[in-house]
């Protein structure tokens, strides 16, 4: 046998691309999964996003202006108040949501929402690999245990970025109001933070399912975790308008920081100074959870 024949990679990360690509193939080669991944955000945005038309609730036509009382005022005051009421809608929207369009506010929350959904599936795929025997095959090869886990996490993160891009495009088509300082580079910033949160969340979901072979477990955990993760965040409602105890939770929720960063980049005209904090918090979350997951994989992937 020639040397070429027996040459094998001594790289500790060999197999990473092969395993990542395998998981990605299952997604992009399956038209149904792929198309549903596109249709789902359309439904969320078009139905929920458009239905929750909050600015119309606080439009001048929503409140009864006491005309009799009004008539007693001097003309100048009447004009001033009329102007005030006309501007009230935008003022409330801006102070609460940072934008006059609630749809834009929510659509950018949806970018993070779709990441939670996408990464939750990684847990199910770990259990599937276990149950169908594929995991056993991989464990009997000289692939590092952390590579097995990392491949799952990377593929889920890549999918998250793709889904986030889809949501952004659909939101734009449905009338997303971009911020004053929006540039094309903002989109890359969005992809970066979505990749980070995707990394953290998929590590978290993988760690939870490392030991289990039951299909019900990741599903139950997924249901238990997603709702608080979403509602105790800035996805649908501004944090500073929440009760104190909920604020406390939302303020440590990495999803909040992701959404804040996405909104700053896409629809807010200001707040860029806080972007490094958002990235640092989400990055730290990803790093810590991934480290925990890798350590657990050394312990638990070998029986």
């Amino acid at each position, binding site marked *: *046998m020639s040397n*070429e*024949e*027996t*040459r*094998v*990679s*001594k*790289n500790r990360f*060999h*197999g990473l*691309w*092969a*395993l990542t690509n*395998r998981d990605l*193939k*299952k997604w992009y*080669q*399956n038209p149904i999964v792929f198309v549903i991944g596109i249709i789902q955000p359309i439904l969320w945005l078009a139905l929920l996003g458009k239905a929750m038309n909050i600015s119309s609730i606080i439009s001048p036509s929503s409140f009864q202006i006491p005309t009799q009382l009004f008539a007693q005022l001097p003309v100048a005051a009447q004009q001033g108040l009329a102007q005030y009421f006309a501007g009230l809608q935008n003022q409330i929207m801006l102070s609460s949501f940072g934008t006059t369009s609630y749809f834009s506010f929510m659509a950018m929350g949806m970018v993070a929402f779709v990441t939670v959904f996408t990464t939750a599936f990684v847990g199910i795929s770990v259990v599937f690999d*276990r*149950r*169908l*025997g*594929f995991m*056993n*095959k*991989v*464990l*009997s*090869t*000289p*692939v590092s245990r952390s590579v097995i886990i990392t491949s799952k996490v990377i593929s889920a993160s890549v999918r998250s970025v793709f889904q986030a891009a889809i949501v952004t495009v659909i939101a734009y088509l449905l009338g997303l109001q971009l911020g004053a300082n929006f540039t094309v580079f903002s989109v890359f910033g969005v992809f970066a933070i979505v990749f980070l949160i995707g990394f953290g969340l998929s590590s978290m979901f993988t760690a939870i399912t490392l030991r289990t*072979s*039951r299909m019900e477990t990741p599903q139950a955990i997924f249901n238990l975790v997603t709702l608080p993760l979403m509602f105790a965040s800035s996805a649908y409602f501004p944090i500073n308008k929440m009760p104190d105890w909920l604020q406390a939770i939302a303020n440590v929720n990495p999803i909040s920081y992701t959404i804040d960063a996405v909104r700053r980049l896409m629809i807010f005209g200001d707040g860029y100074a806080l972007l490094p904090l958002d990235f640092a918090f989400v990055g730290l979350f990803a790093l810590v959870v991934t480290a925990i997951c890798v350590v657990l994989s050394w312990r638990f992937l*070998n*029986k």
Partner: protein
Amino acid sequence: MSENEDVIKVEGLTKVFNHSLTAVDHIDFSVKQGEIFGFLGPNGAGKTTTISMLITVLRPTSGKAMVLGGDIAKQSLEVRSSIGVVPQEYTADEDLTGLENILLCADLYGIPRSVSKKRAFELLQLVELTGFKDKRVQTYSGGMRRRLELACGLVNRPKLLFLDEPTLGLDVQTRAATWNYVKMLKKEFGMTLFLTTHYLEEADALCDRIAIIDHGKIVVTGTPTDLKDSLGGDIITLSVKDQTDITDLIGKIEHVKDVKKESDSYTVKSANGEVTAPLIIEALRKNGHPVTKLSLTKPTLNEVYLQYTGKSMRDAEESRENVFRQRMTVRRARQ
């Protein structure tokens, strides 16, 4: 590694689960270079646990095992790189094609694409799947899946191949074909094979040596012939026309080990039935007791197996995971 060194050497290997269930209990055995070694035993006897430890997927509680010169506990990466494993269940990814599956396996062994592409085509040819290489594994029959698993197990050119229940759930033709592959691997590549099976005639036909494990301990090791001979050899059953007791007469015939008179027949034990039977017929004819009926039974490994493991059925507890995987394997084998 020198020619005569043991490919597998196991000393006092033990696995205790959860500090209470002893699945494998201080076993010792060795497998020689170039032999087909059969590992038999009832469900829950410790076969899969032993194989899992040898392929370094499961850590032993105590004891030592060297596989291809590497310590399974300390050099697990080296051991894993040099052995081939064909697991009990189908592990190929159903959404990928046969070729993609082999290439994926090669990637997991760190084999560069330049080498693995060529090798994948060789392996596809070897297991006669070239025509199906671009079809998804979903569409494969049980036999084709099994052959693909074999190809994946050979992708790193192992000197030692582990086959866990390679014929589980396969039809007779596919089983026979699998046996041929196993024999060919030994003959053409000088490969050492370690296999577990439930089919005893398969172990008899294929294996150079077998070990029977039960309740976590190895109860007997030897060549199939030796083990069968240890039961006392072939059994000849014969009848004669008259009622005279001729037990002593038969007992004096060459090669006859033991004679027992049943109600209207005699049961004769002999190491070499084919030679003894004509001698008996000839001797009895000469003495005026012509044989009216005669049958020759060779002891099978079944008898050996039952002798050592007993006849009671095993209701070993299985994890949900294993039961599910086994069901999936059998179901897919029948596609």
